[in-house]
């Protein structure tokens, strides 16, 4: 127990010291990691804990970001109101889409979330008079919440986002360890058995869907105020797929794994962009390599390598929790 507290104290100290020690650019990357990480963690609630992989998660992130963008740039709503409005919009969208998606499970769930995500992207892309179409919405104001310190200083903004991230992560942590979180895992393992035990499994899946969308919305609201610009790529299927990649890279069904996955993607993208314009190509290759060699994430992949090096039998790779093992044919 003492060791665990020590670990958390080290993490907290590093998080607090970061913007003081590291250059601004790294602080920026860490902030992006937190924002995308929160979105990926919320997706993990569905993909990892409930066994429902949504391929349209960027829709809720984007709905919140666009709500913030539209309210602040076109209606001059103050940030303190636009911020929760973005989260509420994401929750409302997830509540509607969830009704359609959670009627299905497995591959049908996957394809329905995919299609709904693509439709939402289409709305952002084509509804130019409201969303700015292809040009997006520039000129979103900074996140002034009426706090005594100004958030136009990037260091102050870092601490504000850090606090919001930690609160959200704590809530998610409590959620996955609550009886509700345990029933989600039960549904992932065997929905039929849970239903037999008297659980309303549909309601559990639906609530998980809406909660995941809401937390993605929180990340989206933060993103809009941090980036101060939203555009259709923010809710493209590529963004949804990146969120799934973050979950898998970090390890599905672990709360902080997706944060690590987000860090890998954010840092890799910035590293690659320094040398070449072919990020999409590299990202595609990362997808293929991950599926082929690290379906259980970097930790799982490293463990498999280690076991092979030690000459032990390698446990067969599994395509995410609750799924059938990957069979060689």
């Amino acid at each position, binding site marked *: 127990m003492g060791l665990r507290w020590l670990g958390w104290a080290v993490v907290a100290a590093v998080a607090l010291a970061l913007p003081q020690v590291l250059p601004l650019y790294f602080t920026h990357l860490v902030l992006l990691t937190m924002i995308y990480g929160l979105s990926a963690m919320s997706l993990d609630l569905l993909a990892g804990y409930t066994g429902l992989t949504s391929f349209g998660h960027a829709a809720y992130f984007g709905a919140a970001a666009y709500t913030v963008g539209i309210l602040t740039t076109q209606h001059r709503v103050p940030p303190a109101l636009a911020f929760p409005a973005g989260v509420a919009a994401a929750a409302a969208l997830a509540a509607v889409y969830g009704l359609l998606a959670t009627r*299905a499970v497995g591959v049908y769930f996957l394809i329905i979330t995919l299609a709904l995500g693509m439709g939402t992207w*289409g709305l952002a892309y084509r509804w130019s008079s409201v969303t700015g179409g292809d040009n997006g919405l520039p000129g979103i104001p900074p996140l002034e919440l009426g706090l005594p310190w100004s958030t136009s200083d990037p260091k102050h903004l870092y601490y504000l986002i850090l606090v919001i991230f930690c609160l959200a992560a704590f809530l998610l942590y409590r959620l996955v360890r609550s009886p509700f979180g345990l029933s989600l895992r039960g549904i992932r393992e065997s929905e039929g058995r849970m239903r037999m035990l008297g659980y309303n499994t549909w309601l559990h899946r639906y609530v998980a869907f809406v909660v995941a969308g809401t937390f993605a919305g929180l990340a989206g609201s933060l993103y809009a105020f941090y980036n101060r610009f939203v555009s259709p790529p923010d809710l493209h*299927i590529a963004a949804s797929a990146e969120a799934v990649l973050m979950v898998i890279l970090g390890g599905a069904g672990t709360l902080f794994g997706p944060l690590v996955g987000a860090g890998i993607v954010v840092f890799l993208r910035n590293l690659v962009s320094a040398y070449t314009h072919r990020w999409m190509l590299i990202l595609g290759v990362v997808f293929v390599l991950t599926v082929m060699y690290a379906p259980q994430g970097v930790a799982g992949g490293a463990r498999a390598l280690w076991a092979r090096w030690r000459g032990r039998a390698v446990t067969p790779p599994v395509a995410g929790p609750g799924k059938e093992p990957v069979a060689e044919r």
Partner: protein
Amino acid sequence: MQFWLTQLLNGLSFAALLFLLASGLTLIFGLMRIVNIAHGSYYLLGAYVALTVVQATESFLAAALAGSLTVAAVGVVMQRAFLSRFYRAEQAQVLLTMGFSFIFADLALWIWGGDPHRLPTPRALAGSVDLGLTFFPTYRLAVIGVGVLVALFLWLLQERTRLGAVVRAAVDDQEMARGLGIHVDPVLTGMFAVGAALAGFGGVMGGPFLGVYPGVDSEVLPLAFAVVIIGGLGSLKGALVGSVLVGVLDNLGKALFPELSYFTLFVPMAIVLAIRPTGLFGRA
């Protein structure tokens, strides 16, 4: 009246294109349970390859052949070397095809650049036809005809040939088909190639009126998905009905609510899903 007829015909010509895409998507899903995100890339690649060939040879027919066959070859490599190793692991397959769609999109941007192109209309099909009430481009009428022919061909293939019987057996119970001594694997690869070729051919056929440009892959893919979700995954009949529905509705949406056109499609999809989660002709 003239407005509605033009819209209907526009919608039907678009529906024919969608059918070329969606029939392959639904065939591949029905046989292999693969949700192929790279299907939009096949459309894109088909159109780009045709563009290069038509510029070199000035023959639309050669371009159509080259576009379809190249994409079929790409599909065979994807299926044999990658997807067949992940049978029934749907999440892995989606991520894999997603990765390929990024790779293809970026390679196409690298090779053909970012400018929009348009395939030339074949000379024999230039101009328009007098339909009494209105004039309509000959090429678009021809696209409708091609769509009908392909649908007929696929239906005959599936219902009237030995190969079709094998395909139906593999859809119903692949293990049993294997147990009966049917070589299922070459059939799977072959049907994957047919599905990919149809999508590539769709890109060629759409080239003269929709054009080809970076991003067209992710514009047609949602429509193809809407078609198979409405029609039911794995059902050819569903792909046909869904294509007509989505094609016509999309055109009406574009004419009546241009800004919401994309989204108007998802309303019928939502209604179908609410009543029948597996689509009109789908099976659970």
